Each structure stands twice: as C-alpha cells, then as structure tokens.
C-alpha cells in the first residue's frame, strides 16, 4: 500500500511539473471555468493481487462524494417511513448482509423472496442483483428505494427529504458542484462509497500475495477447488476435484466469474432468476455467481437462502444437483456428483474459511457515521 501511495504521489508531482510552470504568460492560460469537476480527487488503494478498478468516467472518486455516499447509505430518509436504510439489509455487523435472515423484510412488513447479497468488491462487478438485471452500480442503487417490498419510497419524496436537511445541500455542493439534490446524484454518491468497500486482506489474499501461508488442509482445499470434478470414468476429464474454479475463479481476487448460472438447485423453478427478466428459456433458473469472500460470515446461502451452513452448500455441489433444461454443464448431474470424501469436504471448507476478511468488516471507514 505504501508503495502504491508513493507512486500516486510521484504521479501527482509529475503531473504538476508537466502541466504547470511551463507556460510563459499566465494570461494566456484558458480559464478553467466549468472544466474542473467538484470535489477532491481521491485515490483508492487497490490490493496488489487485484486488477485495476473500473471507475465510470461520469462518477470519479472524490473525498466529498465518498463521504456523502457513506451518510446516505446509512440514512433512513431513503425509505417510505424513514425506518430503513441501505444498511438495514446490508449491515456491517453481518458482513454487510441481513443478519442471517433468509429473506429481508421491507418497511411494510412484506418479506422478500431473495437473500440479501453481501456488499463486497462491487466495483468489479458487471451485473447486479441475483438475476443480473442491471449493469451498473448506480442503477442498482436506485432500485431498492422504489421497490414496494423493500424501502417503498418514491424518489421525489426521498430527494425532498434529503434536500430539506440542512447538512446535505452543502455536501452535494462540495461533491458535485450543485446543492440541488436529485436521485442520480444520490446514487452516484452511494456508488462511490460502495466502490471503496474493498475486501482484499483475507488470509487467502495474503497467501496469494506471498505474505502468509495456509495450513496443509487449507492448501489441499484450494487444490480441490482448482481441479475438475467427478469420476473420469463417468465424465471426461474428471479429476475427483471440487470444480469450484469455473464459477469462482481465484485470479484477481474476485472469487466470482460474475456470470449467470443455473447451479442445479431445482428441477422446477419457483424463482425464474434471469429468465424472469429476459423471458428467454435459456435464462430460466440462472442467477449471478456471488463472490465467496467472507462466505463464512454471510449465511444463509444461495439466492433463496436455503442452506444454513457451508456443509450443506458443499453437499449440494457434491450431489451433482438437480436436472433441468438449463442446468449448467459444470454441475455433475448424472455423472455421480463430485464424490468428495468427508475429509475432502472439510478441506474445502477449511479453504472457504480463509476467505474471511475481518479488516474489511471492521474497517472504520465503512461504519455508520451517524447523522450528517
């Protein structure tokens, strides 16, 4: 991290040296009217085992934007009766999930149908929600506010309440150059905050960076992760591995491929997943692959929170899953499943536990800042 900061400082110096002081007549300099974005540019540290963070050109990081987003993330004014904030279902005490609940309950007491997803490393995602129905983080943030089974608020109402708060208009002015609040700016600010929520300091990360070791069992679990599943006599190329790598690749620290898959939970779908969005037969029962970061802290599991423990999850994949027209070829239905021994299952779970990042969960910068 220090090296990254040093590089950033050098870049800043280089830029200053390069772009200033070489002009003979300051009067000839074009006036920087309306060309400098509001806010103080912010450089976010990226773990060394991660790729660059994609940042939207129309929503760069600023100190003021991130700070504003943090206040808004925890602000209950965004809900219809001012009782729920984003953090209600994505609580830091529960690793930014909904406190172990299978489903979340909205302001009207209506229980949802999908498990609250953990908010981790969202900046690198390319689709959001379990069904992948939106493609930008800013767009994702707009939805729960309006959802009648979640925060059940209209954006005009939410915006009016934020606008009426004495502290917020100046914060918007500092962050975006305007004191006029609108939903797009609210979403941009929260998106900036969420993009700073980077988990990259688990024991696995340190192992990947050569900064720490894993136990023998954990390493064997990782090895199973990277091996093709199944019996080679039943399915070509089988290596008796756990075959996690296809959908949860470890490269770049992502632990998700970000794609949509049907992981064989059901023979018949009660939740259509992406198919409910696109209407396409080939999308039925497909859901976004979640990251496995902090998986030990974010039970229950799957889009409907049907599994309470990692043992149940591993057993599901071990079984090969349920047949359906869209079940992913990576599942081993019909090929005898993974056939993992109890010892191998425990090694796999031992590895899953190395993905816990308490530095992330306890990071003071992500906690409730109180009233603005």
């Amino acid at each position: 991290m220090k090296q990254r900061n040093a590089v950033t400082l050098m870049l800043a110096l280089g830029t200053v040296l390069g772009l200033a002081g070489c002009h003979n007549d300051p009067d000839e300099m074009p006036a920087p009217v309306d060309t400098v974005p509001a806010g103080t540019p912010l450089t976010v540290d990226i773990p060394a085992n991660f790729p660059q963070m994609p940042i939207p050109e129309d929503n760069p990081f600023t100190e003021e934007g991130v700070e504003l987003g943090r206040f808004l993330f925890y602000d209950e004014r965004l809900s219809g009766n001012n009782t729920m904030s984003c953090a209600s279902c994505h609580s830091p005490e529960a690793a930014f999930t909904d406190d172990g609940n299978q489903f979340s309950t909205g302001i009207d007491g209506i229980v949802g149908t999908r498990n609250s997803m953990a908010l981790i490393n969202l900046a690198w995602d390319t689709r959001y929600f379990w069904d992948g129905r939106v493609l930008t983080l800013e767009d994702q943030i707009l939805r729960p506010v309006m959802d009648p089974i979640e925060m059940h608020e209209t954006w005009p109402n939410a915006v009016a309440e934020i606008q009426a708060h004495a502290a917020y208009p100046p914060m918007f002015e500092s962050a975006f150059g305007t004191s006029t609040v609108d939903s797009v700016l609210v979403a941009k600010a929260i998106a900036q905050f969420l993009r700073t929520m980077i988990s990259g300091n688990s024991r696995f990360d340190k192992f990947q960076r050569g900064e720490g070791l894993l136990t023998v069992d954990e390493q064997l679990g990782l090895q199973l992760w990277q091996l093709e599943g199944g019996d080679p006599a039943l399915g070509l190329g089988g290596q008796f591995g756990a075959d996690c790598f296809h959908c949860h690749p470890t490269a770049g620290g992502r632990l998700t491929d970000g794609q949509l898959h049907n992981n064989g939970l059901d023979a018949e779908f009660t939740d259509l997943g992406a198919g409910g969005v696109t209407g396409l037969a080939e999308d039925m029962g497909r859901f976004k692959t979640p990251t496995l970061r902090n998986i030990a802290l974010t039970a229950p599991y799957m889009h409907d929170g049907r599994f309470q423990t990692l043992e149940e999850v591993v057993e599901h994949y071990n079984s090969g899953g349920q047949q359906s027209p869209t079940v992913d070829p990576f599942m081993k239905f019909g090929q005898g499943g993974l056939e993992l021994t109890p010892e191998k299952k425990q090694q796999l779970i031992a590895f899953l536990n190395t993905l816990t990042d308490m530095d992330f969960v306890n990071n003071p910068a992500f906690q409730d800042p109180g009233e603005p």
Partner: protein
Amino acid sequence: MIKLRPNDPGGLYPPYFCVLKSPNSFRSGLAMMHTPFRTLLALLLPLAFAGCGPDEEVEPTPMPPTTTGTLRIKVVPEWEGGAFAMNSVYTNVSDYRVKVEAIKFYLGDVRVLNGSSETMVKDIAFFNLGEGRDTLLATVPAGTWTGLRIGLGVPQELNDADPIVYPSGHPLDLANAMYWTWSQAYRFLIFDGRYDLDAGGTDPPAEPFSMHTGLNECYMEFDLDLGTGVTITAGNTTTLTVHLAVDHFFYSGTETLDLATENQTHGTNLPLALELSNNAAQSFSVE
C-alpha cells in the same frame, strides 16, 4: 481458402493439467502492480521535464498525413451455409440434435498479408457471439491486402502475463470470465451447449456438452485468402465479413468430433481440446 498452421505442440504446459503452484511461485502481485504505473510514469515524466526550455518559438510540427484506415472484421456464425442462432436446434454431422448456448473465443496476432509482407494490426480481440460481441477493429496501413493471418487463441506472451495487468474493457479483462485459474492462463474457445443422440427426438436436447480449449498447445494460426484483395484507404473504415461455420466445429477432413463420447474438455482432456481447436480454426472463411 484456409491454410492451417497449428502451434508447436511442445508448449510450456505439461499435458492435461498443471499442479497447483506453491505460495512462492504465485506471481508476485506487488511486483506486477508496478507495471502499469511504470507505464504511466514513462508517459508523465517526459511531460514533466520536456518543453520547459528557454523562450523560443517552436515551429509546430506538421501532422503527418493519415496513412492508415480501419479494418472492421465482423464474424458471422452460420450453420451449413445458412443462418445460425444460439439456442436453436440443429442436426450435426453425426446426425445428433445440438443446441449451442455459448461461443466465446479470442483471435490474436491478427496480420494483414500482401505477397511476402505481413503487418500485425491487432494483438488480441474477444468475441462472445451469444452477446453480440462479434466485431474486431484494426488499424491497417492503407493499401491492398490479399490475406489475413490470425491466431485462434491468446498469443503466448499475452497469455503468460498476470491477468490483473489488463484493465477494464480490455479483451483480456478478467470480467470476461475467460481466465483459467488452475492453469494461470486464458481459455481460447468456449463452446457449450446441449445435445440429443436421437435425431428424431422432439424434446429440447438435454445432455450438456462443454468444451473449453486453452493452453498454448491449442493456439491455432490460420490464413484467410482475400482473393484479389481488400483495399484500405486512409482515414476510412472497410468492413470485412468473416464467416464462421459452427457446424464445422464437429468435423474436419475425415475426423468427426463425436458428442456421444467427446463432450467435455476443460484442459483435462487435451486431445479433444486440440481436435476442437483444429476444427474451429478451419471454420473461418471469407467469400
């Protein structure tokens, strides 16, 4: 006309799979982190220290005339010379009913040819035909070019790099989900779908096939003959349609890829991966 030139099979990787590397052999993220910043510094430092000399009028450097144009290569999948659609059911060379669900691949080291001269015009491009990502744009010197030389896959130099160096939007961006962590290398071709051995069946094909090529051995270079040539004019875009015969993925010459027994490879079944790579590389053509 297609001239296939398979890569040297004596690649870096042992056949079938690589044993997981030890912690010390993981690529050093800290070392790799510096690479893009070195590049940035290289760009910024000249800005910092150049152009600050004594007052003098600097003659504006005349812009060189544009000598390049854009070649837009659009890949159009077909089935037996006709239209092809993902998730539609076709009958393949073995008389099996097949439904293709994903075709994703890299084309690398794209060169334009003219006689004995060749010019590299694109290092790497990613195609995901199921999501409409079917076009490659290359900057090409103006002139008439009579052939293309293309690699199906990721050239070794790019393949061997740590994937975190490739930024968002780059063809090798991890977000494209083409990277194999077990081999620390990219998949070259993903060909997924379902099949039914019963040619007379009426239900949707149910048995999955999932064939992913990768490893440097599977890199296949092929040539496309452009006949009298494609002319690139300075500053303009020329579109070239390249046909991709998806039905050809299941055969080449006298060899047939039999889904009954050959339906899965993820690097652990190298002979099948090579067979598919060979078939696929011969599936590209230009009219």
